[in-house]
């Protein structure tokens, strides 16, 4: 049994301790906004926050997340108000298929927490999530909009 805190709620899950956190979030807890893309931490579709840092949950054993604060896309909005990155995504109509965008938004939110006004070079270095629809131009516009909204 592993004890997890996800979006402020405590969960006891009965899984093998080396199960990747992604599958616990999706299948055991039922929060499906966090996506599976590659399983080898290449694409970032599974990005969540652990103690405020962006982590690719497909490659982290659930036992290593025990006792930490886990935030998923479902927990990013606070008090019924979208996070500024989510709002910027809406305002700039960023998503196409949308499958990568949970991870993209979580990665960007963590970046802006760390660096409220990143340069384009810092954005390029930090945001390496794959978007197969190729929304990158809107992603960059969205990041700048979120920075401006801060």
């Amino acid at each position, binding site marked *: 049994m592993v004890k997890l805190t996800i979006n402020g709620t405590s969960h006891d899950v009965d*899984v093998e301790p080396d199960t990747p956190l992604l599958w616990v979030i*999706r299948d055991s807890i039922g929060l*499906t906004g966090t*996506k599976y*893309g590659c*399983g080898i931490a290449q694409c970032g579709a599974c990005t969540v926050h652990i103690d405020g840092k962006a982590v690719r949950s497909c490659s982290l054993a659930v036992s290593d997340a025990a006792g930490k604060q886990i935030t998923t896309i479902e927990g990013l909005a606070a008090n019924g108000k979208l996070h500024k990155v989510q709002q910027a995504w809406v305002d700039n*109509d960023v998503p196409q*298929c949308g499958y990568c965008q949970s991870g993209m938004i979580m990665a960007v939110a963590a970046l802006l927490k760390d660096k409220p006004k990143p340069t384009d070079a810092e954005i390029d270095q930090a945001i390496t999530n794959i978007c197969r629809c*190729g929304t990158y131009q809107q992603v*960059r516009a969205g990041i700048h909009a979120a920075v401006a909204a801060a």
Partner: protein
Amino acid sequence: MNYMPKIDRRSFLVSTTAAAGGLALGFSLPIDAAEAADAGAESAPEVNAWVVVKPDETVVIRIARSEMGQGTLTGLAQLVAEELECDWAKVTYEFPTPGQNVARKRVWNDFFTAGSQGIRASNKFVREGGAAARMMLVSAAAAELSVPASELTAANGVITHAASGRKVTYGKVAAAAGKLDPPKDIKLKDPKDWKVIGQPKKRLDTPIKVNGEAKYGIDVRLPGMLYAAIKACPVNGGTVKSFDTGFKVASVGGVKKIVAVENNAVAVIADSWWRAKTTLDALPIEWNLGDNAKVSSASIAAWLKEGLDADTGLVGNKTGDAKAALASAAKKVEAVYAYPYQHHVTLEPQNATARYTDDRCEVWTSTQNGEAALALVSETSGLPIAKCEVYKQFLGGGFGRRSTSHDYVKQAVLIAKQMPGVPIKLLWSREEDMTHGWYHPVTQAKLTAGFDADKNLTAMHIRISGQSILATVAPARMQEGRDPATFSGLYPGGAEAAFGYDIPNVLVDHSMRNPHIHPGFWRGVNINHNAIYLECFMDELAKEAGMDPLEFRRKIMAKHPKHLHVLNVAAEKIGWGTPAPAGVSRGIAQHMGFGSYIAAAAEVSVTGNKVKVHRLVGVTDPGYAVNPAQIERQVAGSFVYGLTGLFLGGNTVKDGRIEQENFDTYDMMRLAQMPKVEAYVVPSHDGVWGGVGEPTICVAPPAVLNAIAAATGTRHRTFPLRDAGLTLA
């Protein structure tokens, strides 16, 4: 051929129509809350099949095509809303199911979402659906207000009687309108009066795509659901020899069953997908790999190379006598190009959830063609279509992968049949997905051109050698052994994908060579390589003629004014003829596909082996532009997809199997590599509707390649460019 879904669309239409005749299926809503959210309209009565107006004035527009990111959902809603005269701010949507379409005699027409057809092929009947609903609402209002309908006007969801100043809203008369007979004579608006079509409306599906709420096939959850992981033979054509159905990994619980799927795959069913996958990964499986295991990229390339010089080919374009003109040319130029296999890489791996009983088979999945999936569910389950249903979810990418090949749906049903009554979600691992795709076909091309003594282009022969998609995927669409789609963008004329140059003698022909690797429709399909072959070769010819590449093209485009127009716009916007920034070189290309005319111009710098694409101008004439903001996004996205294939992609074959198993060996463009894309939409409004999702994909690679050649003097003719040591900076 193991995975070939036996779908003949034409016969399916006949059989579904016949089935509908004896059916009285109502709108049975899906059983799960997650799916009920998609069904949306709840119990509000419909005005007609396309439109539901709720008492709170919410307008639900029904969308038959699939939404996979291309924005069709929003564009189609705009088409309906234009004629409906509703308040756009109150518009929402729902997806009818394929089973409902069958039950209602295909009232929503076609569900097929590929070939950039979503808006092209349905623009008329969806607008008519909106107009009919408006007319019925106005008729109902006329009865309510006891005035002639001709004295009423409708705007923003409100019907007004100007003479008396009385008003009634759509929501008030919707129930009465739904009981009226549909109008017979429907007159659509003149395009000059459009108010919603042509506007950069925000996508209707954005809000649920930023908070994790949007449900994709992979997200389906049903009570009592189990999970399945699958491995098919790594060599297409091979079969399973043996495996242990009682296999267990000591440290992993929850496994329910290990089953064979057809003769070529093994699936583990467990109470979690991770447990299923972990057990499957450890399970020893012996395969009969068959003779295909001897095939490699080198053997395929050698076979295709023979086809470049085969005596005769299947002809796609013949004007004059190219061979004779080449024989007598003052100067001949020849070049050989090759384009590799490409995987679709939908970021959502293939998946389907199926529940089978002796009396009913239901599937929840991501599909570009719900009706084809339904037909396959019926065929695979052995149950009539009336006892089957497919619940379409959002697609985490389609790009053609989920259009004609529903192998994952077939597998899911075959697995579910082995545990009747239990819903089972089949999910392919990324490794399974990468190695069991339906790949962009592999081709080579030899292009030969002749000049007269005055450097006028007199003849061109394009010999394509390689794989036909239709021969494998849709043999019914072959024409006397010829795959007409092979010649996309090179046809002698027509409204779909015509050759844009006036050359006195032209021959385009095809030596068909079909390796065992499955070919498929990959975003843009055959124009991807055809545009590279033709447009790079045009630059080679311009160089030979000592002319500027733009001027060289213009000289032979007078009879193709639409091709010429987009080329000219691209040239103007990139600043062709003006000095480029220091160290930057330019390239240009044009083509036609899916009824649209497209051109691109690139600004590129090359430092050592690093290529930086700074700017890409994309120009498209799709006839009509329903939502310019979404078109711009499709242009930019298509450029990413096309340039990924050009630089980073490419699938290779070793021992009969695809070598790239995950993203560590099949990389894709990231944010840092994204050029500045400027999209220009120049619709010609002349009655022809072109596509948007695919066409522009094909012009970015040749524009960039031409810019690289201008920068370095080196002409690259084989791809991906990583094989030449080039990286995308």
